[in-house]
């Protein structure tokens, strides 16, 4: 419990500081994504070491691992997986409750802020390290009045070249 609070509160302090440093929400969103990416490229190592999951054979397996293992391990929640595209290259993660936004309210002047955008960067960075180029974005957000929080994941392509992790 305590360490969850620590992360949530620290994340909140970070977003608050970024809002002070950058004049507009778009820049804050970009910065959160970048930071998330840098975290993701390192977090994947920790994840693979702890979880012992083998290589995923397709995107569906990947989705399962993300929701049932990774989210559970790091954030203590298990989002549900829904809305698969017919081609099987897109799905949604539905978070009933998002621990990052405990006790958080978005003030009116920050309506385009994607508060939890760090998560999208983390997903993108982590998956890149296992040879998957993906796009992750929030399409619903309880902070903005939606009933649930929904992250849309889209598979772009397999990464063939093994370039070292790039930092942004």
């Amino acid at each position: 419990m305590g360490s969850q609070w620590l992360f949530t509160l620290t994340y909140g302090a970070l977003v608050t500081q970024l809002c002070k440093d950058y004049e507009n929400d778009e820049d804050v969103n970009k910065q959160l994504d970048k930071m998330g990416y840098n975290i993701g490229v390192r977090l994947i190592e920790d994840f693979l070491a702890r979880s012992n999951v083998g290589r995923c054979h397709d995107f569906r397996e990947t989705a399962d691992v993300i929701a049932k293992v990774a989210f559970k391990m790091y954030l203590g929640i298990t989002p549900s997986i829904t809305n698969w595209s017919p081609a099987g290259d897109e799905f949604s993660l539905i978070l009933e409750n998002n621990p990052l936004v405990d006790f958080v309210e978005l003030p009116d002047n920050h309506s385009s802020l994607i508060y939890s955008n760090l998560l999208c960067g983390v997903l993108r960075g982590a998956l890149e390290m296992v040879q998957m180029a993906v796009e992750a974005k929030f399409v619903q957000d309880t902070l903005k009045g939606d009933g649930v929080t929904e992250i849309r994941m889209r598979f772009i392509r397999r990464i063939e070249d093994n370039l070292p992790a790039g930092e942004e």
Partner: protein
Amino acid sequence: MADEALFLLLHNEMVSGVYKSAEQGEVENGRCITKLENMGFRVGQGLIERFTKDTARFKDELDIMKFICKDFWTTVFKKQIDNLRTNHQGIYVLQDNKFRLLTQMSAGKQYLEHASKYLAFTCGLIRGGLSNLGIKSIVTAEVSSMPACSGVHVQNMQDCCTGTYKAMWFAASIPHHLYLAFLPCYPSQLLPLPCPSLIPPQQTPVCDAPLPVSMCSHCSTSAYE
């Protein structure tokens, strides 16, 4: 613990982020340290609120410090403070022999000069926690190896007396031992204090002798420039 890994990475990214957008130079370095410290302060305030909602009232200052060393430190860093020393006149030294935010870093002199960046948040965390328990304080931290510590602290106390915040770093070969020289300045009544953004330094009496104890109880507020 998995969530600890996530917090460590977030913390490191925050430190990098703060420094990336800043330019070189001592003034900038000070500003970055202040930014990180202030972030830690907010988090410390929030954490203490949640932790102490259901705990009994603290008997005295020492009781509060023990809480910080045991419960607070364990919740945040998964271990207790290894050693707590005090002069019973307002100065406390908290010793963590294996500070979690540094154990991931490789030992080496060239790294040590950057250690302050990784300690600022934690200093703020403690200051914020104490603030919401009604104690105004100055928290400084040092990284050093075991034998080198005791002389270091006397100097720190003197610097605290002038009411300015200084991060003092000493070269050491093992960046694992963290000493938090913590100095509460007159405990006010037990009400949560508003989070200060910048407190202007007030006139403080200058210590007339470099004594290791007692002078600092006359310090006014913690001033961060």
